[in-house]
């Protein structure tokens, strides 16, 4: 992660683990730079449940300000976003802001803010997973990135490999996804920032020349 771009955007295919990556990155950033004001905004307008809004308490307890759509986790799906979002893009703001974006073309919600975001300076992480069928093909993953860039009016700046088969993920599943991740990275012409994974499931991982990001699973658990 760079420190000079104030707006950090996490986008990708739905179900690729964007929310987990976004929340874990925000928590890490706040830990590394405790005196910096950090915010996380849930700007997912397409997903009815399992979203950043579920992690509000954990984020707020860690000193991260959260901005959540008024109707998130309610009984209606009204794709409205709170006006407070504009405060993140104010010229006077120094807050480092993580934006958890809706999957696929749900990134269209970014479009209306794209001029402001560009003025602030941003990086946009494209999250990929080898084990999600609609992007398991390298070309399909690259095509989806183009769609997201088109609808968001912004450019992706890096790839994060979050290849996971949920609770059954093994160390081999993660290692076996690296080749895919490098191929997507090459096809998209973007650096592979790191490979993220649930630390609780597989413990520490290392491989020469590869960067790994151990994460906590923040997904809402029903049972």
């Amino acid at each position, binding site marked *: 992660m760079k420190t000079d771009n104030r707006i950090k955007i996490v986008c990708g295919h*739905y*179900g690729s683990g964007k929310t987990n990556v976004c929340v874990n990155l925000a928590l890490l950033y706040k830990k590394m730079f405790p005196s910096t004001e950090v915010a996380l905004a849930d700007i997912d307008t397409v*997903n*009815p*449940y*399992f979203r950043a809004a579920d992690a509000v308490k954990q984020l707020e307890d860690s000193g991260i300000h959260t901005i959540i759509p008024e109707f998130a986790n*309610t*009984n*209606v*799906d009204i794709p409205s976003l709170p006006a407070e979002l504009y405060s993140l893009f104010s010229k006077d703001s120094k807050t480092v802001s993580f934006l958890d974006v809706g999957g696929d073309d749900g990134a269209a919600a970014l479009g209306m803010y794209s001029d402001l975001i560009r003025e602030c300076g941003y990086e946009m992480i494209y999250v990929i*997973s080898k*084990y*999600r*069928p*609609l992007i*398991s093909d390298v070309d399909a993953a690259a095509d989806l990135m183009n769609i997201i860039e088109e609808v968001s009016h912004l450019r992706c700046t890096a790839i994060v490999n979050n290849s*996971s*088969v*949920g*609770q*059954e993920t093994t160390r081999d599943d993660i290692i076996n996804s690296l080749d895919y991740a490098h191929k997507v990275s090459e096809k998209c012409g973007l650096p592979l920032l790191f490979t993220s994974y649930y630390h609780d499931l597989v413990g520490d991982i290392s491989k020469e020349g590869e960067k790994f990001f151990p994460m906590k699973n923040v997904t809402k658990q*029903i*049972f």
Partner: protein
Amino acid sequence: MSNKVLMKGTEAIAQAAIECGCKYYFGYPITPQTELSEYMAKKLPKVGGLCLQAESEVAAINMTLGAAAAGTRVITSSSSPGISLKSEGISYMAGCDLPCVIVNVQRGGPGLGGIQPSQQDYYQATRGVGHGDLRLLVLAPSSVQEMAQLTVEAFDMADIYRMPAMILADGALGQMMEPVDFDSIPRRDIPEKPWAACGHNNERKKNIVNSLYIDPQVLENVVDERYKRYDVIEETEARCEEYLCEDADIVLVSFGITARICKTAIKAAREEGIKVGLIRPITLWPFPKKNIAAIAENAKVFLSVEMSKGQMIDDVRLAVNGKAPVHFYGRTGGMIPTPEAVLENIKKLAEEINA
């Protein structure tokens, strides 16, 4: 697709349908199942199929009827209010003896209700979807793997018994993600469809697919014949999972996502020495009444746990047949029961039977 993949429940249903040769999807978007149509829209054209967003649920179910009448595998999906709209067409399909798979990813009701998960359409699925003397095969998955597996089985059973089959899921199962293995799904032998209206080329008598019978006696005969098939299904197709029932004093009955919550509560109760088990109906029609009746011989009390005000409990009571009291715990309106709340109910019953 040979390797394990991570999928949403709705996607798993869609991919399973494609894997077992279904090339036609007709539907109309509604939360929380729209990913199913999105997946079909992306995938079906690539396998020479067709995904069509109809102008309404009513149109979608009648397109489904048409495709089924032509003898092809076809699927439609919706969520609660959309299934209500489809019910007329579902009744026509039952009356025409047409196989198809209908997916209901339930949300809170009644009316527009809400978008959060529910199991409030149990009555609708097992009793009252559409008019007339009719039954649907109703399958209740409890995991994303079962969303895939029961979809394949629903297609097979629909073809074997020439009737619509319903996958009764809920929003949580539709939206949550788990690994899926499509290769392990069992398949059955499927009969030919000599009745299909798919063009006779002047080589055979024309087939007519119809639910209108001018002579009441003929209609009664047709319905009677259909009920003979329903009898076979009730006799042979009822399925459930029995979990820790052997020594159980308290037996929970729960299906779908709620059964997963019950298992967590049961594990916790067992750690405290409470003898509790679970019967998880996998088929809601036919209802696994024989299994429940057998367990009722030794169980002291039953607890039906549902995301509704209590609908399946009627079938549990009929199956238990007065051998033991049947209690209820449920949440409604899109609220999901917590394992802690289920555990509390188990503890209360444990105190009562020990008192």
